[in-house]
């Protein structure tokens, strides 16, 4: 087809050459993509260093009975060791064959697909008996909606859940698209205080976005050493039932199992203990979340 180049071909060829991506930009983009594949979409490893698809969360038998796994359970994000190697090869291959952007002056890294939105506020105030971090304000909801929208669109409506921790994001994808676009956002906050007169201090915080009745199991390696299992169900009256097992092991050690019916948007204390004069509590706040149309 292109056997008889004319001046149009030359013009286009010169333009393409002038817009060819530079090596530095290619390397940066490849590193960015690898970073997203490795860190943004968390991948579990077993003890032998091989990737595994199922997080290793051990639930007490009583708790297992409370959870109601759906068809999504066990179908994990299909990025394994081979996948990561492949992505390296793909990046090089695609960039080599010009499947790459042009060089530009103000090179900015590509926007991560599921970047952490920065969860833990620097200070935690007393607000009606719960830490301010447990409140889901409009800004937080907008950020979570954007995260949900982009991730769900990327995986073509197959997203099962997202666990957005302080520095890591774990994602689970089902094996088929789901048309129901109602998700639940559950913010889990662990806070402590030395007396009722002083503000709560946030110890740990994670946001989970999941489909109703989807079992969320986040392994310790995906959550900085802690493990979380959570299940939500929206009741006909609008309240949300939340079952949760949390094993926290990040400086503070804590184990909490709860099964509560929550009002949407209302931070709720689901468990407390006092040790050495320090009161330590687990709070949950739940809100329905719908991905935006993009």
């Amino acid at each position, binding site marked *: 087809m292109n056997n008889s180049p004319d001046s*149009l071909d030359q013009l286009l060829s010169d*333009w393409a050459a002038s817009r060819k991506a530079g090596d530095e930009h290619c390397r940066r983009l490849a590193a*960015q993509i690898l970073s997203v594949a490795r860190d943004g979409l968390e991948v579990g490893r077993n003890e032998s260093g091989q990737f595994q698809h199922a997080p290793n969360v051990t639930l007490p038998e009583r708790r297992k009975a409370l959870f109601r796994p759906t068809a999504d359970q066990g179908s994990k*994000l299909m990025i394994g060791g081979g996948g990561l190697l492949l992505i390296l090869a*793909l990046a090089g291959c695609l960039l080599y064959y010009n499947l790459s952007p042009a060089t530009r002056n103000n090179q900015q890294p*590509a926007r991560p697909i599921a970047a952490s939105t920065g969860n833990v506020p620097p200070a935690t105030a007393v607000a009606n008996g719960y830490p301010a971090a447990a409140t889901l304000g409009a800004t937080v909801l907008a950020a979570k909606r954007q995260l949900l929208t982009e991730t769900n669109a990327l995986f073509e409506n197959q997203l099962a859940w997202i666990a957005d921790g302080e520095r890591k994001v774990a994602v689970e994808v089902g094996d088929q698209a789901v048309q129901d676009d109602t998700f639940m956002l559950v913010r889990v906050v662990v806070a402590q205080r030395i007396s009722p007169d002083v503000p709560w201090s946030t110890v740990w915080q994670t946001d989970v976005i999941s489909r109703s009745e989807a079992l969320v199991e986040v392994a310790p390696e995906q959550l900085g050493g802690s493990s979380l299992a959570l299940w939500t169900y929206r009741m006909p009256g609008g309240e949300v039932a939340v079952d949760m097992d949390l094993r926290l092991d990040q400086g503070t050690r804590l184990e909490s199992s709860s099964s509560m019916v929550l009002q949407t948007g209302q931070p709720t204390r689901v468990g407390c203990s006092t040790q050495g004069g320090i009161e330590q509590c687990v709070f949950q706040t739940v809100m329905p979340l719908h991905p935006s149309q993009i």
Partner: protein
Amino acid sequence: MIFQMVLDDNAADDLTQETLLRAVRAIDSYQGRSQFGTWLYRIAMNTTHGYLDRQNRSPVVFQDALVEPSCSDSSPDRAATNAELRPQIETAIATLSPKLRAAIVLTALQGLSAREASAIEDCGESTMHWRVHEARKQLKHKLRDYLS
């Protein structure tokens, strides 16, 4: 290739990333019936067409990036000409429909045959020939002042 389709650096970065992640996710579906490169091109093109559909072909904003000449393009005069013509060329390409744009990008810029391009775009070979012809006709008309 993606940049040549969307003519936007940031969007091209994002779409390249999306293409790679989709390819990794879909690697199980690659059954060796087509060449691996063709399979990747198809994913990239599908991703790009989706983006262009969402953009509803909104006007393209060009960036005033400096020319970074390649090794084979070391002539200062030629580089200056490229820099001067770049907006005109990109405006001309941007006015093509996504299908025509894909046809000219895949053949004239990526060097694929009409058969390979038709496999990527999921259309008949004769349809691809027509699209390339039509795209060239429109580009020649829009760039007639710069063609010898």
